[in-house]
């Protein structure tokens, strides 16, 4: 193993420049096409909006006040958060067993099965949601089956409500959760589970006392990921929820492109960003504390 070379300060500085030079395109891009625009949402959100005329002069906090006190908006925010929580829980419960099987599998089809999980992720969101419309609509397949089997008289309302969004979003984000969990479970050395087994633990004991606790960091990061993605979702809620059953993203969409109320939309976007950032910070702190305990 060669000893690490000590670079003279002169050489070090020269290399730093090359390194910085390589990084600068991306950093500049992110600065001007990402960070700066998001920052300018704040000034926009502080402007008043006069219906019929457009964005007015001066500064006002009315949009934020409305977002956080008006019942209509609060309901949407609450609905979005609850949706996030339930979807996260569902993807976790449904996805963990699958992830466990895939992670521990030794079959030669494993690679292709993993790709089968990834495949929906690469498919267009619109396409996948469209498939759910064909299934969940009043005249969709599910209702046809239910009525054909005589289980219901009337078509069940599976779209434009919480149920529809729940099914659709769980489907969309399940692969994300599975992929994160597979990576985490794979990192738990098989030997640790084997050691538990030689010490007399049966299958469920090993799982509850060894595998599950060790996969908590992964469960945490996967949950944060799915939660953030769920509350940010636009396409699926818009198509499965319709224009009347709104979530935060579709509200922003409506305000920007239909109501042309950019300040209110920006305020909502800022609120959403803050929620996301808070979540990620919370998640990293929790993960760090869990790792410190372990």
């Amino acid at each position, binding site marked *: 193993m*060669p000893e690490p070379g000590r670079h003279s300060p002169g050489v*070090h500085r020269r*290399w*730093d420049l090359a*390194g*910085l030079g*390589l*990084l600068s*395109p*991306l950093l500049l*891009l*992110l600065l001007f*096409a*990402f960070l700066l*625009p*998001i920052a*300018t*949402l704040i000034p*926009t959100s502080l402007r008043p909006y006069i219906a019929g005329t457009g964005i007015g002069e001066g500064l006002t906090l009315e949009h934020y006040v409305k977002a956080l006190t008006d019942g209509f908006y609060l309901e949407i925010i609450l609905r979005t958060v609850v949706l996030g929580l339930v979807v996260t829980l569902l993807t976790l419960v*449904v996805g963990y*067993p*699958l992830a466990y*099987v895939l992670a521990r599998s030794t079959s030669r089809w494993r690679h*292709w*099965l*993993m790709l089968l*999980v*990834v495949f*929906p992720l*690469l*498919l*267009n*969101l*619109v*396409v996948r949601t*469209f*498939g*759910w*419309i*064909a299934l969940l*609509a009043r*005249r969709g397949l599910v209702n*046809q*089956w239910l009525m054909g089997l005589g289980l219901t008289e009337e078509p069940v309302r599976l779209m434009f409500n919480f149920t529809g969004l729940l099914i659709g979003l769980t*489907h969309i984000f*399940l692969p994300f959760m599975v992929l994160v969990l597979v990576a985490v479970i794979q990192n738990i050395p098989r030997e640790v589970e084997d050691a538990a087994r030689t010490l007399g633990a049966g*299958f469920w004991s090993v799982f509850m006392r060894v595998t599950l606790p060790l996969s908590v960091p992964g469960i945490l990061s996967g949950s944060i990921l799915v939660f*953030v993605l769920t*509350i*940010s979702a*636009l*396409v699926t809620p818009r*198509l499965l929820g319709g224009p009347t059953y709104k979530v935060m993203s579709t509200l*922003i*969409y409506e305000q*920007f492109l239909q109501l042309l109320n950019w300040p209110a939309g920006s305020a909502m*976007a800022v609120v*959403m*960003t803050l929620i996301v950032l808070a979540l*990620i910070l919370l998640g990293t702190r929790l993960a760090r504390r869990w790792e410190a305990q372990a």
Partner: protein
Amino acid sequence: MTPSARRWVARLYCALVFGFLMLPVAVVVLASFSTTAYLTIPPQGVTLRWYGRVLESADYLSAIGTSLLLASVATVCALVIGTATSYALVRRALPGKAVVSAVVMSPLIFPGVVIGVALLQFYAALGLAGSFAGLVLAHVVITVPYVVRTTLASLSGLDAQLEDAACTLGADRLTAFWKVTLPLMRPGIVAGGLFAFITSFDNVPVSIFLTGVGTTTLPVKIFTAIEFGVDPTVAAVSSLLILTTALALVLAERWVGFHRFT
């Protein structure tokens, strides 16, 4: 429960979950052949007419063209910028790498809708609203993290001494990179390029706010089409997308072992 019974339960469960994952995809493909506006099982008739409509529609073709062009340009830019970034992160001594990494990856978790509206009002202030260049910039921002992630993985697995060996044999740093490191990074570059292309091609939340009158992308077009009502033409376009994605995935797996990057 015996181990073998457990195995069968596991297999059944996996089959059910995979079934759930593939269900809408299958439905879309089936619906594209149906004669009725709504898919019925058993289908009332089989036809290829919706595919014909897609391939004849000037609107759809132009949207496909726009998406292809946009995705290609964005992917190439993302590959260049992303590879340079991961090279700097892996091979160069720089302060605060963790922070830089976090910043580089942040577009991945940021709500697309926020990025979209932020750019919309930013571009409007600058007079770039609805421009193709603005759209490209936005797409590069959201695709670069994928490229950085896969090329970083590829690069980390390479022996740093290979470039040194090339230098002692007479190659300057740039030639060493071009002839030794880059070819060995190919799996990461291909995987990153695939992720980037698909992310750009499929994107709606950012694109929908930035498309102008002449620059509609395919997914935005499908999105607005669905909002107006269900039409098997949409199913046909969607099936074509499904087919090409599946093909690309198989090719990527065969060529560079794509599953390693998932």
